[in-house]
């Protein structure tokens, strides 16, 4: 194991973490403000990726594709919120789970109908591809490095939005007492739609960025959705700061676990079973972290009472 490889893995973990944050921040806001479990958040991630792929292919511009991912995911978010989600705020968690599960079916099958089942690939423009040399002579993908930077920038912006602006104050007020803030004259329905659209746009953007590294395909959102749930539960539901800490924790722990555990077990086992045990344990690692966090802090790291 070399030092360079370790740094590279940590950077990969950070990159994974900030992408998770883009998903988790929307999910945690919707959860915290509206009390809604949205399983269809992963579908918005997929919508963003497909919008980016379709527009980038049609216009030849990756930048337009990225913009489209934000716009289309937000639009899909607004549409779904107005038509369906709005009716679920007053329902129990069970109805929300069933309805948003149904939405996943609709989104996935609708996308398969439009685009087919084959994965699409995005070409990152020349200027963003290639590698950069970091201090210490480490070569690292420029695109991934940019994702980390963009992710942290968005996280900073979102924290500022929530803690410094008027709409942020309203969102936080909505989290603690929704009746009171509607009594104070805030249009709560509009606020809900804005929060939902914001979360959708961030998820769609994450979908486009991750789709550029991997591939764009139906069902790409669900694995990330589950991880995003793990993140917000670790961080504490409704807390953006918690989502940020949780995302980075999950991203780094997962990536490093997959890298280090097989090596660790290799120290006292034969290589093939070390790989098997190590990777089995690594894939369970973040769920163990989550169970551990909930065991000691049943409402997450930064959570108020559930």
């Amino acid at each position: 194991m070399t030092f360079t490889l370790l740094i590279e893995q940590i950077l990969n973990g950070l990159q994974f973490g900030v992408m998770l944050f883009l998903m988790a921040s929307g999910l945690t806001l919707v959860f915290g403000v509206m009390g809604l479990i949205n399983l269809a958040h992963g579908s918005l991630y997929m919508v963003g990726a497909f919008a980016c792929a379709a527009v980038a292919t049609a216009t030849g511009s990756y930048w337009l594709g990225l913009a489209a991912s934000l716009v289309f995911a937000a639009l899909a978010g607004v549409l779904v919120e107005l038509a369906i989600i709005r009716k679920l705020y007053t329902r129990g968690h069970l109805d929300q789970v069933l309805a948003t599960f149904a939405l996943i079916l609709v989104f996935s099958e609708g996308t398969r109908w439009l685009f087919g089942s084959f994965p699409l690939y995005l070409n990152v423009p020349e200027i963003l591809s290639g590698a950069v040399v970091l201090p210490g002579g480490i070569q690292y993908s420029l695109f991934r490095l940019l994702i980390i930077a963009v992710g942290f920038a968005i996280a900073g912006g979102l924290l500022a939005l929530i803690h410094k602006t008027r709409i942020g104050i309203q969102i936080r007020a909505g989290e603690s007492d929704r009746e009171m803030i509607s009594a104070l004259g805030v249009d709560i329905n509009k606020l809900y739609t804005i929060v939902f659209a914001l979360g959708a746009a961030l998820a769609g953007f994450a979908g486009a960025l991750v789709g550029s590294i991997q591939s764009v395909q139906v069902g790409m959102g669900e694995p990330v959705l589950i991880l995003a749930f793990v993140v917000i539960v670790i961080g504490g539901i409704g807390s953006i700061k918690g989502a940020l800490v949780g995302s980075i924790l999950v991203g780094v722990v997962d990536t490093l676990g997959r890298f280090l555990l097989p090596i660790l077990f290799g120290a006292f086992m034969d290589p093939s079973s070390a790989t098997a045990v190590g990777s089995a344990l690594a894939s369970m690692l973040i769920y163990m972290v989550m169970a551990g966090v909930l065991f000691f802090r049943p409402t997450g790291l930064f959570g108020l009472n559930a």
Partner: protein
Amino acid sequence: MTLTRETAINAVLFVGLLIAALIAYLLDEPFIITMATKVAIFSIAGIGLNLALGYGGLVSFGHAAFFGFGGYVAGILANHALNNTLVFSWPIEMAGTNSMLMIWPVAIFLSALVALLIGVLSLRTSGVYFIMITLAFAQMIYYFAISWPAYGGEDGLPTYIRNSFPGLNTLNPIEFFLICFVWLGVSLMLCSAIVHSRFGLALQGTRQNEQRVTSVGIDPFRVKLVAFVISGGITGLAGTLYTDLNRFVSPSVFSWQTSGEIMVFVILGGVARLFGPLAGAALFITMEFTLGGMTEHWQLWLGLLLLFVVLYTPGGLIGVLTSGRGKDV
């Protein structure tokens, strides 16, 4: 029990499933019998979940763990019997088996044990956190099953033949259906007995108001834990039957989609209604089949249908049929 409308609907559902399978047998339509078997198996899984989710208010998003565990117990024991190897040799020697009479108690016991472990840890949390921690445990087992190569890993584990039951040819679809149907009846009776027992009342009391239950001297944690364990055992049994139905078990039985599906059956049929899971599973699997025959994109229509059910029919299918007097959870 008085003859209410719900009892009548329940009887129609239960007898209807049997008649559907028997007619399919007379018409020589093994595929329909298999579908009816699937309905029976998923109903049993749903009955297990309903006990925790419906009557106990414990919204578990991780029942795939128990369903899969039961499934893998059947798969692993049968696989060892097939290859004539020992399951383990320490502290005692344990050989594989393909007798259902042996597999069932082992599977129920182990699934219940897993439910005990998961329950002890998860029941410390409540609400959304409980939903998520049960999901996390199921995911843990899912990834473990995928990456553990001893029993097929990602490829799954074929059992080639169905496990045997004395006096029956389990490979004959109608005979296997009857086994599952009898189990469905037993699960329904067990669930009904539990719900109407003192324990069942304590469980429903705990769901409604934990403080009040505590004040009359009942420990809510223990009540919930016992319900969760029984729930896990029943769902685990369904898992073994599912392995036998497919003659194959793969990690996908542990996936969150499996948990989601079992949950959908329960909610679709009507939460905290004895026959709700049966109604839900029957409707879902029939829709899957009919829509699947009409269009390639049946999932889209199924999704829209589910949306309609959630938004406009509180109380699920049985709730609608009994004029919408929804039960609240």
